[in-house]
């Protein structure tokens, strides 16, 4: 086996040193009845690279990729261009095959990039501090909710009707397990400001999203004020990190905690994961944050260096008192994120956001011109919901036959939302004017 360096001679020499007759000796503690003798049935034996690669290529070929034709699927994950150098950087052995930087003297590479990542995320979200990543946006959202409860010592959270339903589900799950009451406002395309009406003295936090799952952008300042009035927190969510370059960011709206999905920067779609959860908050709350934090310090020579810090929040030190159970996070995706951001720079990032927005506006114009189409999202970044006279599932299927992946039917995300004819469509810098024209033409045919 190509991954196993021991030769038969090595094995017997080593057994000899150990004084064991065979490896079976090491398994003596296993109850006899639980020992597998011989092969596991139903699984193939080892295969060479060529055979395995062909197997995987065969499976891959059964999928339609986002680059195979006009593509408008979004709703929480976005098709963006990832520079080739980003993929090269994350494939560096020294980043790819190392562990969490627990030994800072030989992990300054990882640590410095995390410090830079935290700085970038804080600046993009306009928050004070950011952590070193969560699994993804949805779990970051759930962690934000329980953190708010810890901070406020309250046990109620309110979710907007525009919060991504998967985020809402993950949040509800974690909260309910901890005995936290979860109020979910009914699905609403433009209902984020409703949150203001649902804060009371028992509320730990309200959770709003902008751009929300229907693409609507909202200045959450009024709900921040409402929350703060009641000493509750505002958790501000985004699923499209590129929007931070153009749309009012959480920090400018008074958010106490900002969470979101970072996939759009540096990370491919990969059918939903791995992605990278962004988590930022105000300085005041830092010691209640979940996840790892990288901080600056000096070494014995007085030289600047970086270490993981405030670990007493974490499970490996604090165990049952930890702020979260998270251990492994999304390190390499964070590296992809930070290296892409480094290439973009603030100016490039804003330009990218602008391009996304303009392309989506072009798309909206083109679809709006198709008779029967009604754009439902009043203000948007790069994604919006629209309605046609026909069932969305049927429309999407007919578009697909014409080579256009036209978006996500709202009813897949909000089965009970009475949104059977609604499609959520996204456009990015990867969308060409030809793609848009193809979409409009196909849509005209099918509705």
């Amino acid at each position: 086996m190509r991954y196993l360096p021991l030769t038969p001679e090595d094995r017997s020499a080593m057994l000899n040193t150990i004084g064991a007759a065979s490896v079976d000796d090491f398994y003596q503690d296993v109850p006899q009845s639980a020992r597998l003798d011989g092969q596991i049935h139903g699984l193939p034996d080892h295969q060479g690279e060529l055979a395995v690669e062909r197997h995987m290529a065969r499976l891959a070929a059964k999928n339609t990729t986002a680059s195979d034709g006009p593509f408008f699927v979004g709703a929480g994950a976005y098709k963006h261009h990832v520079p080739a150098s980003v993929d090269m950087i994350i494939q560096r052995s020294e980043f790819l095959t190392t562990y969490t930087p627990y030994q800072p003297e030989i992990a300054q590479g990882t640590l410095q990039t995390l410090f830079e990542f935290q700085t970038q995320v804080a600046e993009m979200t306009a928050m004070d501090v950011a952590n070193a990543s969560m699994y993804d946006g949805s779990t970051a959202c759930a962690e934000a909710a329980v953190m708010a409860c810890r901070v406020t010592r309250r046990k109620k959270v309110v979710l907007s009707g525009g919060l991504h339903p998967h985020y809402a589900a993950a949040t509800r799950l974690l909260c309910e397990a901890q005995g936290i009451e979860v109020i979910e406002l009914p699905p609403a395309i433009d209902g984020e400001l409703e949150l203001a009406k649902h804060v009371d003295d028992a509320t730990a936090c309200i959770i709003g999203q902008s751009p929300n799952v229907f693409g609507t952008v909202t200045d959450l300042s009024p709900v921040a004020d409402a929350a703060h009035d009641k000493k509750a927190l505002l958790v501000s969510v985004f699923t499209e990190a590129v929007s931070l370059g153009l749309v009012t960011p959480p920090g400018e709206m008074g958010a106490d905690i900002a969470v979101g999905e970072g996939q759009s920067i540096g990370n491919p779609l990969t059918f939903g994961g791995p992605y990278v959860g962004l988590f930022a908050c105000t300085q005041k709350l830092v010691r209640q944050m979940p996840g790892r934090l990288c901080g600056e310090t000096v070494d014995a020579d007085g030289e600047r260096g970086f270490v993981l810090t405030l670990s007493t929040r974490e499970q490996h030190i604090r165990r049952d008192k930890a702020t979260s159970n998270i251990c492994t996070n999304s390190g390499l995706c964070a590296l992809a994120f930070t290296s892409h951001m480094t290439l973009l720079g603030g100016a490039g990032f804003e330009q990218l956001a602008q391009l996304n927005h303009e392309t989506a506006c072009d798309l909206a114009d083109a679809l709006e011109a198709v008779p029967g189409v009604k754009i439902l999202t009043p203000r948007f970044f790069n994604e919006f919901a629209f309605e046609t006279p026909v069932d969305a599932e049927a429309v999407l299927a007919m578009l697909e036959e014409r080579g256009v992946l036209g978006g996500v039917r709202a009813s897949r995300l909000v089965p009970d939302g009475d949104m059977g004819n609604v499609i959520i469509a996204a456009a990015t810098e990867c969308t060409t004017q030809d793609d848009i024209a193809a979409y409009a033409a196909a849509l005209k045919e099918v509705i």
Partner: protein
Amino acid sequence: MGMQTIGRPTTPVAVAGSNGGTISGSKGLQQREDLIFEVGALDKTGVDLPTPKGRKDRLGGVARKTDVALPGLSEPEAVRHYVRLSQKNYAIDLGLFPLGSCTMKHNPRLNEKAARMAGFADIHPMQPQRTVQGALELIDELATWLKTLTGMPAVAMSPKAGAHGELCGMLAIRQALIARGEAATRKRVLVPASAHGTNPATAIQCGFIVDEIKADARGRVDMDDLKAKLETTDDIAGIMLTNPNTCGLFETDMKDIADLIHEAGGYFYCDGANFNAIVGRVRPGDLGVDAMHINLHKTFSTPHGGGGPGSGPTVLSEALAPFAPVPYVIKDEDGFHLVEDIEGEAANAFGRMVAFHGQMGMFVRALTYMLSHGADGLKQVAEDAVLNANYIQARMKDIMTPAFDGYCMHEALFSDAFAAEGVETIDIAKALIDEGYHPMTMYFPLVVHGAMLVEPTETESKQELDRFCDALTGVANKAAAGDPSLKGAPYFAPKKRLDETQAARKPILKWTPPVPEAIAAE
């Protein structure tokens, strides 16, 4: 698992003499590299984007007010920044990475290649299912491997890492208790003192309370303590047990424990982080386990990436299977489908843990690895992993202090008893850095004083093990002799010992522009 440094943040002892300076700050191949904020410029960029048209926007005024004040780097500068930084890291590809409980094995590059096939990397989780049949088939195929290897009937694929898998298993237990109407009363989860920190943390996250059980002198669950606990309490939700456990030992009484827990009305959560020791030789399903997460980023070789991403599919017993979270993949004559809603066959699902369908990128890598090894190779993996650990234990047992008698499984645990007064585990660890090795896991598990947990994995050759043992012997001898130079180690790393105490006291968690001197002087 990395290190446990309760009460032991490093504050380095000052040591004399650096190697003589250079003007550039670099030294030979070791390149100085400042923060991007210090080298980049606000108007610089390493991408070329089309110029926006300046068309009428549809933001409705919800626009960012402040600039994103982040510097950019041109591509050459950016590449160099990261390549230079990368060389300040240790990695599996550079040498033995004996971090106990972490299974730092070789990460095959075929896995990386497969994960980058457009048919996997460039598909969207919300595409129509007709257009992602290959992806669903892959998930199904991987699920079959996991179920077969563990001997369990069901698996939840969406958990994002080990701890998230624990959450999955414990939420399934919670849901089962809800179904039994006992959720409010059964709150107690037994967790051995030796458990990984995520275990108690997870139990708490699920609203349980944690009750610690003792280890016996052999490093296993103290059965008397366990039995006593079960007799004196009536609110047992379950137990969380790692097997092989974090002392690197097989829990001899595993089956009895399972029976006792089941009799007490609880469920058996097994932490499967150490599955590498037994894959192909023992099926957890044969031991009475109800739920177990599998770290694909350990046993199945997906890369750790400096802290993730991982993937923690969680296998479930018949008892817990109905409560598995959505989404999951099923197959019928039309092909593969995702069950996404909590209704119909998924009516009892405990919920949805996460957006979308799990760590596809890791699934591709793990399946590639499994197909490469095959069932026969995976068995050999376990055997070689255990052989390598026992070889280290045998070579070091007279020089260091083995924590327990007898053979170990995939990792060898030592205490610091052999070290002279004043020499601490951390000193030994840092001295190993100078020898070109990543240290072992330190101060974990907590049940052993000054613990050193050494997990070589099966992807180390005898030659590497010998070299490592030679170096470790030298360091251990110094430790036994109380050599004061150990306190200054590492000497040859990119940095000297870092001051963790200072970092925690006044946390600096991001770069801030230096205050202009004029202002600072005021």
